[in-house]
């Protein structure tokens, strides 16, 4: 879009305290009236020295810290770390643990995408979807609470297994929830996704071409929203995702160019349904077993390094661990999906209007806890 910036430029400091920056993000906008000439994100307000801190914590003690990165999908955060340590130590877990991990990860993905969709509705000015989404998310959090006692930060995945088995009869409840939940997605579509105003606000806004997305290393729903078929669960399966049937949803550009805000939003909505499919299959495959493998009490991986990537709700989450053979990681580096998409923000938002900035930011679905760590 060609814009004439000849008018007076006003600097608008959006954030770090602002209702729509999804945390403590600060955007410095150069505005010409309602048009934004440049939007520079400033991150780091939530930096908690995660990577340095965990160098002084033993391997099992790192798990609660990983929870606090992406607090909207803590299950997926700890799963990635635990899988990385297990890969380093060469631990194989049994089928029950595998499928329980998949169930928990997918439930967590649904909960996380519900936050994304709900807050996105809120960003566009519709408050009702937000509460509808949170109503259903509550039910998922209830499952987590029944299983491990926590509703937000779980510490549920342990190296070599899980903290607890699920309660007897919970498989049935989860399937009932999925049966209840799938029609709710259609309700949400009727209220928000197919709303004319919503489409007008998002469909031609914030176009991220596949080339841009790939060159910035964008992953997850944001990449798939640009029409690139890439999902770690499919392309580099872990935990046995290869045995389960599901489709990788990509943005199709029904309303305008591919890679718009609407596409990114819709990919999440469709993924929620795919997650429901995965949960059904995983519950059907649950076999009795012990949820804790025999692992030494003091986790002491051999010297070496490992990179493990998993598909978190916000994209590809990578853990790179260097072990020197001691009880604590020598170095731990996280490849954060939100950080990479944030780097593309400036390019995607160029020439947008103030209202579009909010809709682009919301469609990226960032969590500042994970960007800043």
């Amino acid at each position, binding site marked *: 879009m060609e814009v004439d910036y000849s008018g007076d430029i006003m600097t608008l400091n959006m954030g770090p305290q602002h209702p729509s920056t999804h945390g403590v993000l600060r955007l410095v906008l150069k505005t010409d009236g309602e048009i934004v000439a440049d939007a520079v994100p400033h991150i780091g307000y939530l930096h908690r020295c995660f990577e340095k801190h965990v160098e002084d914590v033993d391997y099992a003690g790192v798990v609660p810290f990983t929870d606090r990165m992406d607090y909207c999908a803590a299950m997926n955060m700890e799963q990635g770390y635990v899988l990385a340590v297990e890969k380093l130590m060469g631990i194989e877990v049994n089928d029950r643990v595998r499928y329980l991990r998949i169930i928990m990860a997918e439930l967590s993905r649904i909960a996380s995408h519900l936050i994304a969709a709900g807050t996105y509705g809120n960003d566009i*000015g519709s408050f009702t979807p937000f509460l509808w989404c949170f109503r259903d998310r509550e039910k998922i959090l209830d499952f987590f609470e029944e299983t491990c006692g926590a509703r937000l930060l779980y510490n549920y995945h342990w190296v070599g297994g899980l903290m607890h088995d699920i309660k007897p009869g919970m498989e049935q409840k989860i399937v009932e929830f999925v049966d209840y939940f799938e029609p709710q997605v259609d309700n949400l579509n009727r209220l928000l996704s197919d709303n004319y105003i919503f489409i007008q*606000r998002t469909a031609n806004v914030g176009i991220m071409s596949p080339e841009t997305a790939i060159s910035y290393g964008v992953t997850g729903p944001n990449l798939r929203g640009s029409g690139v078929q890439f999902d770690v669960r499919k392309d580099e399966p872990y935990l046995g995702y290869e045995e389960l049937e599901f489709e990788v949803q990509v943005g199709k550009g029904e309303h305008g160019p591919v890679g718009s805000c609407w596409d990114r939003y819709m990919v999440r909505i469709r993924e929620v349904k795919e997650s429901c499919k995965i949960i059904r299959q995983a519950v059907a495959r649950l076999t009795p077993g012990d949820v804790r493998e025999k692992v030494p009490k003091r986790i002491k991986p051999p010297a070496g390094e490992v990179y493990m990537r998993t598909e978190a709700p916000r994209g590809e989450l990578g853990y790179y661990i260097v072990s020197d053979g001691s009880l604590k990681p020598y170095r731990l580096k996280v490849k954060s999906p939100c950080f990479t998409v944030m780097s593309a923000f400036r390019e995607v938002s160029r020439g947008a209007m103030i*209202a579009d900035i909010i809709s682009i930011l919301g469609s990226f679905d960032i969590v500042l806890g994970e960007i800043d760590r």
Partner: protein
Amino acid sequence: MESIAKLLQAIPEYDALPELLQFLIPIVTSCVIIFALLALCVLFMVWLERKVSAHIQDRLGPMVVGGWHGWAQTLADALKLFLKEDIVPASVDKVLFKMAPFIVFLGAFAAYVVLPFGASSFVTDLNIGILYIVAISSLSVIGIIMAGWASNNKYSLYGSMRAAAQIISYEIPAALSIMAVVISVGSLSMIEIVEAQKGSFLNWFIIKNPFIFLAFIIYFIASLAEVNRTPFDLPEAESELVAGYHTEYSGMRFAFFFLAEYANMFLVASVATTLFLGGWTLPIPLLSEIIPGPIIFLAKALLLIFIQMWMRWSLPRLRVDQLIYVNWKVLMPISFVLILGAGWMAIR
């Protein structure tokens, strides 16, 4: 007002008071009555809005304060707002900042003078009633710009600029659709407009004349924009502009903005009731004798307010350019056609 003046005559030695007082007392009394009724109405509307939004969103809304369905919640909130410290930030233009909420409220309040709530329940019957409403209600734009400018806050400035652009442009289709009614009646007086719709449902302009039915829809949409309701609530777009022009306000001054917003909502609903839905008349023989006019009027206005709330809690918000597009390229041409149509119907 005449009836109030007559009532006052009954007070012993009222005639002995100076002329000026005899002139002022009825005015002040009717203002106080209108203000009290308005405050009551707004309290009820805020409670209603909370309940409506809550049920749309699968929650219960206020349930505790006052006992029955939290009826006293807004009362408690209003009390809290009035008792709060009146914060005036250091860098604001103090005079304008303090005045702005009252000017915004004045614009809404002054229009109530000509609203006919019942056959004899009105303050005054101006012969240019509807024109007066259109004119005086645009006064609030000045207050909004004052608030935005005086706040010395960029978000406030954006909010007030959006509000000015929006309210002024949407006044045109709103006024044009009002004109369609005026053409059919041949009078600007609110009372005469209602009198013209007496007798039968078929006399209500919304049913009587297809052009005026469309004019009603245009007026309803334009009035939503005039009172900054979703999908046109850009001036206070929370997700973009924090709280728009009332970002810096708190306590009583914020309460006045709030009061003005709901007073405006009620005003546009009342105008629509008067112009299109037959005002206080109810053409059902027995019921119209039992139910007093103001109750019928309120019921019709509240129905429209309920629709406003229903839309607010289901629709997202438009963007600035889309908002202006809807006004100038969709509503304006249609309302011109409607005026032609209504004029043709009137002289036919």
